[in-house]
């Protein structure tokens, strides 16, 4: 497949692995921010190609994993209401809240539909004027533009029965929070290529300068990831801390300006709670005041609701790079993809699920 097979080339991968080997003289800890990258690393076994001095740690960039427990609870509560059609991306269905998951709500009779685009919800809303259609708007800057477009179009079309349960999160504040922690051990970052395809790289230059840390915007195929690691390691070895772009075939410095304008119009930056991590100031999107009529949180009166996470789950440490999934006492025993304690065990992009699927024999 074009744009894919050429980045999965065995020889190309081997050459990059050798180049990394030659570049490394000391131990380094590098975090891949995005869950898609974590998945590719474990699926293709890329970490096994790296020299021992390089430790890859898995970042918070899995939207399923960082959506807070109370948001799942809210989704379950809204979905359970009569007259509601609750729409979601597929992999949110199995994420446990404090009182069950969306699959459970479906089994109990909720009208729950898996969609591939929030725009599909507008069609459902138009076809079912007597129903309230709610979309679970989760994800990073990658999914935000389509969600913004759905809300924007709903207003243009005068749809009164569509709303968004918003739990959007942003990458740069998360990187800043990781670097601010006194326990931080991450020395370089592979930033999420798709997020930067939307947002550009501007936000990452000041971040790299502030913390003197290499941030390399990286793609998702094996050769992308290894090249990202190589660029990060070269910076570390040379004592540089800059933002560089490995994924130039998809990412422009300015990003997608049209998408950004729409997001600025529909959303506002708000404080956001991250599952396993806690609240990070100004780290997410909520609906702008002008679009409050589309805010499911307000419509269903759930704004004040909070819930506690499972105490045994160490997903916060995993997502900040302080622990690996195999360090968890519950891994593979009390916490499995069939019965997850925390979200990283649920999503295919969650670090724990990736380890469970590909690395269980080491546990």
């Amino acid at each position, binding site marked *: 497949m074009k744009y894919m097979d050429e980045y999965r080339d*065995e020889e190309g991968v081997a050459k990059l692995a050798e180049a990394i080997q030659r570049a490394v003289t000391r131990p380094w800890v590098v975090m891949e921010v995005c869950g898609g990258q974590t998945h590719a690393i474990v699926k*293709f076994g890329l970490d096994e190609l790296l020299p021992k001095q390089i430790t890859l740690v898995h970042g918070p960039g899995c939207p399923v994993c960082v959506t807070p427990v109370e948001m799942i609870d809210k989704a379950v509560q809204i979905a359970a209401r009569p007259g509601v059609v609750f729409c979601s991306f597929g992999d949110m269905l199995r994420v446990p809240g404090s009182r069950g998951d969306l699959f459970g709500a479906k089994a109990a009779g909720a009208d729950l539909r898996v969609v591939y685009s929030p725009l599909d919800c507008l069609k459902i809303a138009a076809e079912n004027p007597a129903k309230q259609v709610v979309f679970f708007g989760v994800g990073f800057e990658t999914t935000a533009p389509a969600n913004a477009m759905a809300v924007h179009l709903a207003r243009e079309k005068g749809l009164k029965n569509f709303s968004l349960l918003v739990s959007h999160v942003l990458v740069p504040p998360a990187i800043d929070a990781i670097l601010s922690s006194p326990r931080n051990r991450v020395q370089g970052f592979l930033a999420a290529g798709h997020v930067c395809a939307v947002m550009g790289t501007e936000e990452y230059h000041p971040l790299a300068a502030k913390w003197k840390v290499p941030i390399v915007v990286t793609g998702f195929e*094996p050769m992308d990831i290894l090249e990202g690691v190589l660029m990060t390691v070269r910076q570390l070895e040379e004592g540089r801390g800059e933002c560089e772009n490995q994924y130039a075939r998809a990412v422009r410095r300015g990003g997608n300006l049209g998408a950004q304008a729409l997001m600025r119009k529909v959303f506002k930056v708000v404080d956001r709670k991250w599952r396993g991590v806690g609240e990070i100031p100004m780290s997410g999107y909520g609906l702008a005041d002008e679009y409050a009529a589309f805010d499911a949180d307000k419509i269903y009166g759930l704004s004040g609701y909070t819930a506690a996470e499972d105490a045994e789950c160490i997903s916060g440490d995993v997502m900040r790079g302080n622990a690996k999934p195999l360090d968890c006492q519950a891994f593979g025993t009390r916490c499995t993809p069939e019965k997850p304690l925390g979200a990283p065990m649920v999503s295919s992009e969650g670090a724990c699920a990736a380890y469970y699927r590909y690395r*269980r*024999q080491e546990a």
Partner: protein
Amino acid sequence: MTDKKTDIYDVACPLPISDYPVVTLAHGGGGRLMHQLIETVIGRAFAGMAPGEQHDSAVLEPPAGQRLALTSDSFVVRPAFFPGGSIGHLAVNGTVNDLAMSGAVPRWLTCSLILEEGLPMADLWRVLQDMRTAAEAAHVAIVTGDTKVVDKGKGDGIYINTAGVGFVPAGRVVAPSRVAAGDAILVNGDLGRHGMAIMAVREGLSFESAIETDCAPLTAAVEALFAAGVDVHCLRDLTRGGLSSCLNEIAWAGKLALEVRERAVPVREDVKAACEILGFDPLYVANEGRFAAFVPESQAERALAALRQMPGFEQAALIGTVKGPDPRGKVHLTSKVGVARVLDMISGEQLPRIC
């Protein structure tokens, strides 16, 4: 599509039930309407297949000296019609293939229908015609059955259960316990087409060319292996859970380590692309006309040649080997970039991912 259905109905079934364009609860009530449905629709679709007189059960004459293989499967696929096939094809081939995987030659099938009130009669007729076509292609007869009608909203149009009987020729043992170190692992064609065909229609995704199901009877392919003199150790169809579930089941059952090369597994480009879009792995996607064969390494080439001469199975491939005993029963996959990892069985079902 509607026009086409009407055509089939008009041409092949110009019958009194046209008074009833849809299935009603009365069609399952045991009275005259039910008999009319059974005789004029179901009976007509399967005409000439059941030997002897109509009674509460089919009374059949088994061949002498052969062991009987018996299986049963239920079909609830949504939607009932999809590119390249229907629930009717699946209901026949699914059961036929379960028998073939035991080394049996399938012979008789039952057909139990659970119909939802309101199912268009034309749809029922089309499904039954598909069952007939599939049964003829697989050389099996549908000899008895049952029909129930459930209230609107209590079913999904049509559910079908088929049980199947086949006979295992003397001396033939095809079983997981025969899989041994050194066995070659073959598949009879490209993987993932059925699952992605269903996903595409279910989710309203359209690709440049429609991905059609791989649904097919496997009896002829299995018999071709035996005819070529291959000592087939084990066969397993790659239905739910795809290749990964099949291989893990075999690995667990025999406490064996299996090794598979990802690059050797045939997957069509359009299926690969659809999987990439949805975040699926073709190794976990269901097939309805694909199986894995475990054969002695020395006979692998002969087995491949036998499979490849069958129409539709030209892509048959050697994908791996059985390495040796492993108390934990593991499948190791050499990834496309040459690194080995575990190929685990999927938990639950694959969910389309967010980004």
